């Protein structure tokens, strides 16, 4: 099942009189359950593509179908709703709310959700997510009391609280040492394998990319390579464009 389909997406930034094309016609489709690494040198347009995929930005031209919905024409509020219900984000610098306990950080997106959960239910769900990322005993800890890997796991729990089909990770291991990086990546693999969550990682670390089962390489605003990587789940089909 095609979860994401991009049709000749372009993005051009206007700098005064000069227009700077960043994405020059990207066509791509991603099926549910893929674990994708989006790589490329800096300035290749991978962050811009990520922002468009994450509905944070709108393409200048082209179509973006997400879960059967054309999103390139949605308003800012409609995109916010979409981000809340269908997309999860994990950032390089975790972006946890300071002086806010882990469980409250995880429950935060629920307050913007369309469905009305009581405080009790929200707490229960956040606790459940934290247990799933292995932090059941750290619920009331503040971010400053957690290690980097634990913080990133809290961020993953937060990204998954609304049960989105897609998870975006922007350099998820950029601020972690190699050991905790490995833990986080294993968690991604586990989520991908057990829950069928589609994960799209932006990275330029080949070791991280090696965990993916499909690797998309960007260069100068176009897709240069799209191939199944030698990931740990070789049985999953890759390269579906």
């Amino acid at each position, binding site marked *: 099942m095609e979860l994401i389909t991009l049709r000749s997406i372009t993005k051009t930034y206007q700098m005064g009189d000069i227009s700077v094309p960043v994405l020059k016609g990207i066509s791509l489709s991603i099926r549910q359950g893929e674990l994708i690494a989006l790589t490329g040198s800096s300035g290749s347009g991978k962050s811009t593509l990520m*922002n468009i995929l*994450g509905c944070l930005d709108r393409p200048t031209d082209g179509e973006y179908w997400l879960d059967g919905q054309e999103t390139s024409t949605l308003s*800012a*509020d409609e995109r916010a709703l979409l*981000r809340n219900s269908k997309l999860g*984000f994990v950032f390089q610098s975790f*972006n946890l709310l300071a002086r806010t306990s882990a469980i409250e950080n995880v429950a935060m*997106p629920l307050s*913007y959700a369309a469905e009305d959960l009581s405080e009790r239910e929200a707490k229960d769900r956040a606790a459940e997510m934290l247990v799933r990322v292995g932090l059941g005993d750290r619920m009331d800890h503040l971010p400053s009391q957690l290690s980097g890997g634990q913080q990133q796991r809290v961020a993953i729990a937060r990204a998954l609280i*609304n049960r989105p089909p897609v998870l975006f990770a922007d350099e998820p291991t950029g601020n972690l040492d190699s050991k905790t990086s490995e833990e986080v990546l294993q968690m991604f693999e586990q989520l991908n394998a057990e829950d069928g969550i589609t994960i799209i990682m932006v990275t330029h670390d080949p070791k991280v990319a090696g965990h993916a089962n499909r690797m998309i390489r960007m260069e100068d605003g176009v897709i240069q390579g799209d191939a199944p990587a030698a990931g740990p789940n070789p049985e999953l089909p890759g390269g579906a464009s």
Partner: protein
Amino acid sequence: MKVYTTARTALRALRRNPMRAMLTTLGIVIGVSAVIAMMEIGAGASAALKKTIASMGANVLVVRPGTASSGGVSFGSGTTTTLTPEDSQAILRECPSVRNAAPMVRARTQVVYGNRNWVPNAIYGTTPAYLDVQDWSILAEGEPFSERDVLNGNRVCILGKSLVRELFEGESSVGKEIRIKNITFKVIGVLTPKGANMMGFDQDDVILAPWTTIKYRVTGASLTNTNQSTAAATDSVNTLSNLYPTAQRSLYPERSKIQEANNPMPVRFANIDQIMISANSSAEIPMAIEQITGVLRERHRIRNGEPDDFNIRDMAELTKTLSTTTKLMTNLLLAVAMISLVVGGVGIMNIMLVSVTERTREIGLRMAVGARGQDILRQFLVEAVVLCLAGGAMGIVLGHGGSLLVKFLFKWPVETSPAAIAAAVLVSAGVGIIFGFYPAWKASRLDPIEALRYE
């Protein structure tokens, strides 16, 4: 996003930085407490001032009979004999803007006690209402005469402080008897001293007595005689048993007993010199004048187009002073209040702007996980309003406490004003919304991509 959740999020955000939140509210706390304290102390001062000016007679109207003239010779104001005690009662009964009305007759003659004598400035014959009209109800000693004394023409009187000094040389006068034109009067009370009025007239140099007593026993005459001193300085000898010693010639032709029996006079004709009236408030004076004019014209059967046979005078100067003072006071308080609240509001805006900049990444994150612009706007707006309301509540407590302290320490008059408290709550919420809006709006307009990248 529900209001409740928004409020909780806002509270949580504030709790994350309690020191800053407290400093932010400090401006509002000081502002509101200053407003409340100023309002309460100011209202007390204003009320005290108003009372003082009112006691000088700002609400008082004087009705005097009009001018009589004969052969082109005008006898001056107060020389017709048309004003009656019944007019006074009718005014009180029929004019809603009138609080009280007292008929008055005046006399000026010698007063004797023991081997001392004195001619007071004025001897007023009146009713107990006079004390109320003049805001003089609290006596220094004794008690006022009653309506019954007025009806019976009892020989009782109240002395002014100056008279007590002149006649009694400081010893207690209550219960003693003085003589006014050889009529004995029992002193039943002493007025609280008022001092001189604005014209330099010693207000304590008076005797108050029932008007019936003065009218029928002392002067025995209407004041048609323009020269009162001749009327008073009668040289006929009185005995104490003679109730009406200075009876003058009758106003009407002598009637025989048969005439009396056939046509009894329906009214006891008694004219008075003036009516003292107090209006409900100085603001109601114009209305009171209109109502009194209507009542008196009707009672005196004056046709349309004919001139009034009476004059109504108000204390315009005092009234003006009163309203100017009150207005000045209110405006002053308002100005102080506004300045302190605006300063507090600017403080809130400042801190909120800093807070928005500082929390740019948080805003970006909230937007990334699905917060819409309006959710962010609401969150920051609620934060500002919560800060302001909390500050307002603290300010009310502090301000009220402050004014109570002033009351107990300095014995200043203080008036609790629920209106000021309500206004303070509304204004502090308003300040929160007005000064919180710009930072909140700025936050809601952030681009999530930029915000997330912000360092």
